[in-house]
């Protein structure tokens, strides 16, 4: 089947609503990767979502191309992961060159037994295309093109939004407004809020070219290569024989001149050699900043993605962290809107994702300081590190061409129940639950695919299933209003058909990988949050402790505040 040219799609302007429509639950602004993910997540949790976009097109140009494993795991939960992976170029390996010489190679996913690779490369228009198609199939999403927010008023219990369309203006009242309107966020400006951080004095040229080439599906990064002296170059493979080439230009480069084909083509020809044939797909010159909003919540307006925080592109921490924002916020907003958690649960979105933004900004700033040294001595240390890296292992660890996006571990989160029992420090509470190959009723499946969208109580049973009383306790826990799902993880030596689980769901750890990754013994129990982060764990099945951890993970103690 031929791919849809998502860049050319132009959506019909959505009509003005004929009635005021009363109070709406959730309004999301911005139909980019973050806004679409947010809308899908809320819709799948049963909420009506109005998604407003000021344009009538998806992404023009490839823009964000690297989507991380954690993002793919989230999109799997939303049902769009497979389309992304089928089309995307999967990769795990990065190589770094200094001048002509390879100095370091890294594997971002050195172990097997994960459904998803460390990364896929996929043009942003495909990513948005697949998310859009899922949103268009979703009855709960009212996607309105060319509906531009031009005013917003904060009331104590809701938000009033003024929307401009080519046919006129109207107002909407919403319990919650989620601003996913990008780095230049008009909503942020309307509220008089600012990002704070560092702007970097350097310019980069993105040239996406179409060509037949035999470079492997790896991330290649050159410092000071002979074909582009004193600067850096990044090469990445995308689907459809499109290659991302990213040239560092320096601060003095003229952005208007540098995007002209007569300037771009010779740069690429020098890289590829005189015989290479290619055509330009997309060219852009960019600068960047590492900055964020002081807080992501302003009463009933919540900021997510680039609207809330920006990083340099080295590390692929922009779109990936934005999708994690949506993943973190959706389940909390759902519980608050259904009256199952106090509003203060929303504040933990800010605490956890502001912490994540800080982590991403720190990594991104450090990469930028290595790639763009700010002084003569900084350049000297950078180049010496690269020279030492050829011969000495320690220096390779210092080479920083971008620390690529990994999921943030909420190790300090107030939602966690700290360990009372001893566990391997390799997997801390607050970390995202690791994947593992398992089987369900004899069919090969992936562990993360079994967790669903709610809380999970996973009980590991490498050798012995729990006793009848423990099984009854688990069944009773499932009746809690938060509806946690109990899941027995049976060891590979157990016969899953020979065990009466009293109706509880079971998976078979056929390779024994899950037990190792979760440092599990008989009846080791994990409480996993709806965003698949670990909330608590124990060495036995204690229903009171599980219930207390569930209350803590939803801030139930704040009830009435």
């Amino acid at each position, binding site marked *: 089947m031929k791919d849809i040219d998502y860049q050319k799609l132009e959506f019909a302007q959505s009509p003005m609503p004929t009635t005021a429509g009363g109070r709406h639950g959730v309004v999301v602004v911005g139909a980019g990767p973050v806004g679409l993910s947010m809308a899908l997540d809320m819709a799948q949790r049963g909420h009506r979502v109005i998604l407003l976009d000021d344009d009538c097109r998806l992404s023009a140009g490839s823009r964000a191309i690297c989507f991380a494993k954690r993002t793919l795991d989230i999109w799997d939960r939303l049902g769009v992961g497979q389309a992304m992976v089928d089309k995307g170029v999967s990769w795990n390996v990065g190589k770094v060159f200094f001048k002509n010489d390879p100095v370091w190679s890294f594997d971002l996913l050195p172990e097997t037994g994960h459904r998803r690779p460390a990364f896929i490369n996929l043009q942003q228009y495909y990513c948005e295309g697949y998310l859009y198609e899922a949103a268009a199939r979703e009855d709960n999403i009212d996607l309105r093109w060319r509906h531009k927010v031009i005013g917003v008023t904060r009331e104590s219990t809701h938000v009033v939004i003024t929307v401009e369309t080519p046919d006129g203006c109207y107002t909407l009242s919403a319990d919650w407004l989620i601003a996913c309107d990008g780095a230049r966020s008009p909503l942020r400006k309307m509220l008089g809020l600012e990002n704070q951080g560092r702007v970097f004095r350097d310019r980069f040229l993105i040239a996406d070219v179409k060509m037949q080439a035999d470079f492997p599906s790896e991330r290649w990064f050159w410092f000071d290569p002979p074909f582009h002296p004193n600067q850096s170059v990044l090469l990445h493979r995308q689907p459809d024989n499109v290659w991302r080439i990213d040239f560092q230009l320096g601060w003095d480069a003229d952005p208007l001149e540098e995007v002209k084909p007569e300037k771009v083509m010779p740069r690429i020809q020098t890289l590829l050699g005189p015989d290479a044939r290619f055509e330009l797909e997309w060219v852009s010159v960019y600068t960047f900043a590492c900055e964020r909003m002081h807080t992501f919540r302003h009463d009933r307006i919540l900021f997510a993605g680039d609207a809330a925080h920006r990083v340099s592109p080295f590390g692929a921490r922009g779109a990936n962290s934005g999708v994690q924002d949506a993943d973190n916020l959706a389940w909390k907003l759902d519980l608050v809107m259904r009256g199952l958690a106090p509003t203060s649960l929303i504040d933990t979105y800010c605490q956890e994702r502001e912490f994540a933004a800080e982590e991403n900004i720190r990594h991104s700033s450090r990469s930028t300081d290595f790639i763009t040294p700010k002084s003569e*001595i900084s350049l*000297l*240390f950078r180049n*010496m*590190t690269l*020279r*030492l890296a050829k011969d*000495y292992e*320690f*220096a390779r660890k*210092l080479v920083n061409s971008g620390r690529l996006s990994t999921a943030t571990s909420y190790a300090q989160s107030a939602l966690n129940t700290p360990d009372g029992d001893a566990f391997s420090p390799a997997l801390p509470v607050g970390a995202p639950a690791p994947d593992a190959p398992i089987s369900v009723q004899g069919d090969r499946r992936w562990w993360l695919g079994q967790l669903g969208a709610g809380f999970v109580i996973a009980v590991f049973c490498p050798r012995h299933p729990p006793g009848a009383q423990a099984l009854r306790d688990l069944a009773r826990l499932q009746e809690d209003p938060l509806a946690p799902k109990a899941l027995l993880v049976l060891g590979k030596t157990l016969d899953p058909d020979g065990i009466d689980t009293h109706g509880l769901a079971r998976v078979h750890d056929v390779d024994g990988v899950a037990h190792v990754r979760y440092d599990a013994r008989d009846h080791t129990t994990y409480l996993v949050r709806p965003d698949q982060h670990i909330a608590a764990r124990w060495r036995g099945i204690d229903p009171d402790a599980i219930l207390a951890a569930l209350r803590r993970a939803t801030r139930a103690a704040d009830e009435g505040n």
Partner: protein
Amino acid sequence: MKTLNTSANFDAPDDFYEALIDAHRDLDTAQSHALNAALVLLLANHIGDHDVVADALSKARQTVLRS
């Protein structure tokens, strides 16, 4: 927290100093700066402990700013 050992630690201090000056023999100033950078990286990795290295960086910087 570990701190930098600033009491005398060389078995033969004069041998070390001679070796340091010898390492720079016949190098121009740019090469000498590069050598010093390499030396800092190699020694800092050998120490490894972040607190000790940070203490050394701080003492070195204070020394420069005071003079």
